[in-house]
Structures are given as structure tokens and as C-alpha cells.
């Protein structure tokens, strides 16, 4: 990601704007996944407010892969930001487990409820979410849950899109600057297929095995007895070459059929062309 002089000035200004914006918040709890957005948020919050007024909190449940949990802890330690993990119980909510098209609303509602409780316990003024300006496009039911609970989204509030987040992260030397997006494991199940701890663990086992084979950007989609692997276009030739080992990896995770999607990894592909079935909140 090469920048000319003008672009570098703009990135520096965006970074200063973000830090100044957070500095006005007195004290913050950062909803911290260890991903690109929340790591930038935690890093800037630390600079704006100091370690005694910032707490990064990671929500833990079967929908969070163990690799993400380990990475979040490691990155938080490297940043020097105070860090906690909190268990979330979205799987126990039948409205979430039914996996409707607004599943994320119920998940985020549970997450922000728990994190708001922690913020009150620690006397922190604001709870921060890593939503950026690109996230307001597309189907994002989780955003409604954040709005209802008054969760702040500084990256969005100062107008940063994902590319800007990555540029600022790189400028700050953050290890996450080029990290691929990493949605929760429930996103691998098509709407209508119930979310269970067993299915989530199956997807996690399959993805760990595919990652061991050297693939970096991919998803294992759960279709009942079949696993449908989506890999980035740049990795498709490798997938053809490693087909037998990929088949073994997916069957080893408990799937009866191991499939490779010929069109490659596409964010949101499970929901292409689907009528959206929502569960209303009453």
C-alpha cells in the first residue's frame, strides 16, 4: 500500500482526528475482537486517554474461534492495553439459535448488554464499537443493537472507511493492518440452519485444517452433511493442486462431502438471492 506525500498527510490528519475524537470521551471500554478495526480503536484510545482510562474487552462464546481469542490476547498484550474476556450467551437465546436473517441483532444485543455492564462496573464513560464507514452498507442488523444501547463508533463518527483504517494502522505499526476480515463462525451457516455449538465447532475444526494447508483467505460454509469451501481467487490453483488433502481435512472435521466452490470466496455469499426471514424483537 504505497502512499504519496499528499496521501500520507491525509492519513496523518485522519489519525490525529480519531485520537482527538476519543480524547473527548473521558474513559472508554473498547469492544475488542483483535481485528483491524478494534485494534486501531484500542491503540488510539490508549494514546488519547492513557491505560488507566481504557479497557479492551473481548466477548467469548462458541462462535469465536480459539485462534481469534489467542490473537486478541496477544495483540492486547503487545499494545499494552488492559484487557478482559467476558463470556456471552447468545447461543442460549432461541431467537439467535434459530439463525434468522437478523441473527446478528440478537448476538450484538447480548454482547453490548454484557459490555455495558462491565463498563458500569469499572466506571467507564463510553463503550466503543469498531464499526467503520464501509460497514453502514449492506445487511447489518447488529448495528441496530449498538445504536439502541448508545454504543459509540468513533471510526464511523470521524468518517474512516476500511482502507483508511488499514492505512492508519500501518502508519502506527499495528500488526493487524493487513489482517483479513474475520466474522464469527455463525456466518458460515446459511440462514435457517440452526446455530449449535456442535456445528460451530465443526466449522472451526475444518477451517483450522484448511489453514494448516497454507490457505489464508477462505471460508468453510456448512451445508448440513456437506462443507463448501470458498477460497480467494488467488488461491484457487493451490486448491485444485491440494484437492485430496483438502477433502481429507474437511471430512476429518465431520463432513460427509467436501466441496470447492468454483467461484471462490465471496463475503456474504451464503445470503445471495435469499428471501430475508427476520425475527422481530418485541
Amino acid at each position, binding site marked *: 500500500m504505497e502512499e504519496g506525500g499528499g496521501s500520507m498527510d491525509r492519513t496523518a490528519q485522519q489519525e490525529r482526528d480519531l485520537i482527538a475524537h476519543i480524547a473527548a470521551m473521558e474513559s472508554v471500554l473498547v469492544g475488542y475482537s483483535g481485528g483491524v478495526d478494534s485494534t486501531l480503536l484500542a491503540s488510539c484510545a490508549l494514546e488519547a486517554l492513557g491505560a488507566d482510562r481504557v479497557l479492551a474487552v473481548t466477548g467469548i462464546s462458541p462462535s469465536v474461534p480459539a485462534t481469534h481469542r489467542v490473537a486478541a490476547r496477544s495483540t492486547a498484550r503487545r499494545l499494552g492495553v488492559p484487557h478482559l474476556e467476558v463470556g456471552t450467551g447468545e447461543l442460549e437465546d432461541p431467537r439467535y439459535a434459530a439463525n434468522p436473517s437478523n441473527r446478528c441483532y440478537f448476538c450484538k444485543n447480548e454482547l453490548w448488554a454484557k459490555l455495558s455492564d462491565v463498563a458500569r462496573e469499572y466506571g467507564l464513560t463510553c463503550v466503543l464499537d469498531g464499526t467503520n464507514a464501509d460497514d453502514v452498507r449492506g445487511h447489518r442488523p447488529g448495528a441496530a443493537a449498538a445504536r439502541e444501547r448508545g454504543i459509540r463508533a468513533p471510526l464511523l463518527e470521524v468518517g474512516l472507511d476500511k482502507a483508511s483504517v488499514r492505512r492508519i494502522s500501518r502508519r502506527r505499526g499495528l500488526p493487524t493492518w493487513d489482517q483479513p476480515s474475520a466474522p464469527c463462525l455463525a456466518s458460515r451457516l446459511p440462514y435457517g440452519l440452526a446455530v449449535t455449538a456442535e456445528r460451530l465447532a465443526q466449522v472451526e475444526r475444518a477451517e483450522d485444517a484448511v489453514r494448516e494447508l497454507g490457505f489464508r483467505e477462505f471460508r468453510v460454509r456448512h451445508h448440513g452433511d*456437506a462443507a463448501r469451501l470458498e477460497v480467494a481467487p488467488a488461491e484457487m490453483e493451490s486448491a485444485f493442486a491440494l484437492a485430496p488433502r483438502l477433502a481429507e481435512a474437511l471430512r476429518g472435521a465431520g463432513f460427509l462431502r467436501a466441496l470447492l466452490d*468454483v467461484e471462490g470466496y465471496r463475503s456474504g455469499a451464503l445470503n445471495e438471492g435469499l428471501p430475508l426471514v427476520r425475527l422481530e424483537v418485541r
Partner: protein
Amino acid sequence: MSADDARLARVRELLRSQGLPFADVSTAGANHDIAVLEGVDGSRLASLAPAIRSIGFRFVALDLSSREG
């Protein structure tokens, strides 16, 4: 002929029209919404996908096990 059989028949016709008489197709997934191809060279798969999806499948995939020795 069931709806599944009709879709599969149309995909086989498509494959034959593309000079792939030995390729075959089956369905997968709880909703039978995945067309699973066998006997098709990897480089041709992606180009066939839009036409196969227009026949009524949501996804087009290769059976990885069919490439095992």
C-alpha cells in the same frame, strides 16, 4: 421427473453443449441448492458457474473427493 432431476438434466445438457460429454453433476446441501460437478477441468469451472446458477442452483462446486487418487 422431479424438479431436482429436471435441473440436473438441464445442467448435463449444458455440459454436453460445452463439449464436456463425460462431465456429470449431482446436488448437495440440505436444500439441494449446490450443483456439484465431476469430470470438468478446473480452469473451465468458473466460466460455467453463471449458466449453471441460472438453471436454479445457488452454488456451483467441485467434489474434492473426485480428484483423489
